[in-house]
């Protein structure tokens, strides 16, 4: 189990001390996070680390997961797609499933939710829990991890009526915020440098992954790690690979993805990806279990550079992970990728498979450029996108919520020892 002190070596003792001070006025408060999956996807990964670290800081924090059947997750997947801009009409029957599932979950979690001082509801799946908790006493915050910049309007209109009841919301970028009367905080997500996904690995572990998946260490390798989801544009990645391969026949592509329990669309997209790959021996399509963190880590380190050619992206933690491993990223020019891929500094932003192919060729011909971008990327992540920064902003937000809406909040307390 990782302790908050373990991070001092990476971010500095002063940062850890700062976290302890910020946590001080929050001690004794009951803090609850709720989402819809324990494993798979960036939200579960963040909570898996954030909640224990809050506990380690002495906070009474817990993580609850709502449950639902296939129809519920079909519906919420549709929400996910619609909020990211896909035309996604929703039948009334699906909305009934959505609401009744939330009502049942609210019943099951009633005591915990009513007693909580601060509740974080993650993404749209558990959004109606608030209205089914009329005797709540705490502050409720909706944490939206999704790119909400161009939502399918009828869908947002439906969900908005739940969202506006919250005391505050959190978005990853200002572009995602929507007109609502409550305070909308901006907190980019983060990665945990000490997790299996991101910790340093022995050379043998990286070689082991190469051997297991038949990746030739002597040839250039590019990788995209993501769910098999159309917004991640895996088909576009294969097309970019083909265009670049005409100039670099030795190139290998690894598409590594897993399913999440709240993503029923993955299998359909995976089949499309396999069809597009057309049995190319140099395209490695890997369907990995959601807990294959060490494997993902090794694959990222085994790659020369990383792709994240999404067309919509809430934040793109796979970009952060790659940069942390000093791998430059060719990223889709959208959402949170733009916050991390600083064009020509930590990687390249692209809009088309053609643009991606051009940048792939650039990296292959100029490995020294890729290396320098990787170095800059790791430092950029160290300063801005590690979990300690995320934790600091969560703590500051909670302090702000309990202390009032003042622009300047002074905590009159002494440092902990």
């Amino acid at each position, binding site marked *: 189990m990782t302790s908050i002190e373990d991070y001092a070596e990476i971010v500095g003792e002063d*940062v850890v001390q700062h976290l302890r001070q910020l946590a001080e006025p929050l001690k004794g408060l009951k803090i609850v996070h709720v989402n819809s999956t324990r494993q798979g996807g960036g939200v579960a990964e963040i909570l898996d680390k954030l909640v224990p670290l809050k506990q380690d800081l002495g906070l009474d924090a817990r993580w609850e997961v709502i449950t639902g059947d296939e129809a519920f997750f079909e519906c919420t997947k549709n929400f996910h797609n619609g909020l990211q801009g896909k035309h996604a009409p929703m039948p009334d029957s699906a909305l009934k499933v959505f609401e009744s599932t939330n009502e049942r979950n609210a019943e099951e979690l009633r005591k915990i939710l009513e007693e909580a001082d601060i509740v974080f509801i993650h993404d749209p799946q558990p959004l109606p829990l608030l209205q089914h908790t009329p005797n709540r006493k705490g502050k409720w915050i909706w944490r939206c991890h999704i790119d909400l910049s161009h939502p399918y309007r009828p869908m947002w209109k439906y969900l908005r009526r739940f969202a506006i009841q919250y005391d505050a919301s959190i978005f990853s970028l200002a572009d995602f915020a929507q*007109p609502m009367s409550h305070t909308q905080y901006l*907190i980019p997500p983060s990665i945990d440098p000490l997790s299996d996904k991101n910790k340093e690995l022995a050379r043998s572990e990286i070689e082991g992954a190469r051997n297991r998946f038949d990746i030739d260490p002597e040839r250039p390798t590019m990788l995209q790690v993501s769910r098999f989801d159309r917004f991640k544009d895996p088909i576009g990645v294969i097309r970019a690979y083909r265009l670049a391969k005409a100039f670099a026949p030795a190139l290998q592509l690894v598409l590594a993805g897993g399913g999440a329990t709240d993503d029923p669309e993955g299998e359909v997209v995976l089949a499309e990806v396999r069809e597009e790959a057309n049995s190319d021996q140099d395209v490695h399509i890997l369907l990995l279990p959601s807990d294959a963190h060490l494997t993902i880590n090794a694959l990222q380190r085994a790659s020369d550079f990383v792709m994240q050619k999404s067309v919509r992206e809430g934040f793109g933690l796979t970009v952060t992970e790659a940069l942390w491993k000093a791998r430059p990223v060719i990223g889709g020019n959208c959402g949170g990728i733009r916050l991390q891929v600083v064009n020509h500094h930590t990687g390249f932003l692209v809009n088309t498979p053609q643009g991606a192919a051009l940048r792939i060729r650039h990296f292959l011909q100029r490995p020294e450029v890729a290396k320098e971008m990787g170095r800059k990327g790791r430092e*950029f992540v160290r*300063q801005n996108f590690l979990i300690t920064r995320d934790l600091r*902003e969560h703590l500051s937000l909670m302090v702000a919520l309990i202390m009032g*809406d003042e*622009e300047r*909040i*002074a905590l009159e307390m002494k440092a902990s020892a």
Partner: protein
Amino acid sequence: MAGDNDHAGPFAVKDCALVAIATGRKAQSLTELRHNLQTIHEGCIYYHFWGGLLRPRFDDPQYVNDFAVWCHYSLHDDTLAERLAVVDPTDFEDLEGLRQELIEIIDQRLDELERSTWVPREFQFHFIRSQIVVLDTGVTLEAPEELQEIVPTMPLGSIFYHFIDARRRSLQHTDDFRAWLRGCSENYKPVCDCLAGVDPYFKTLTELREQLADALRRAFQAVGS
């Protein structure tokens, strides 16, 4: 709010954290930027001038406030970017004065231009404000010479609070270190002069801390402490 350390007593070391807040106000053209500036929460002016130091950014910024950066990268109007970049917020009594100066500069540019340029949606300017949480670290300094020891290991939030944020808080629009040193003794004037030479706008907070530490070490050596 007046400075906390602008008197000759002990120097209380504070730390701070900034939380960014979306206002929902956006600008897609220079005209829209100007209209929003007129009515936007004054906390936005603060955030877009100073907040950059406590949020993700990369390399040395060419332009030292978000308005100038947007004019350069999104509007591609370098004339305006340059004019906005040289605005020193500490020249103004308060944020209202700074707001009026920004509007004045933009109005002048609008007079010069035949039409206001529009930018694509993804390049629009988002007005952001912030809340600042200030913490007492429990550390107090009795003698100015102690600054040499403490500054190199100060949390970055403390550097921001005492060296950047202080310029808005203090009546003299100066940093807390100089305010305290002036209150202690006239003898520290060379140290104050040395600190005045540290320009906070072109560096990350880590680099700024190093530069301050270096400036203090050299200045105290010069005054013979």
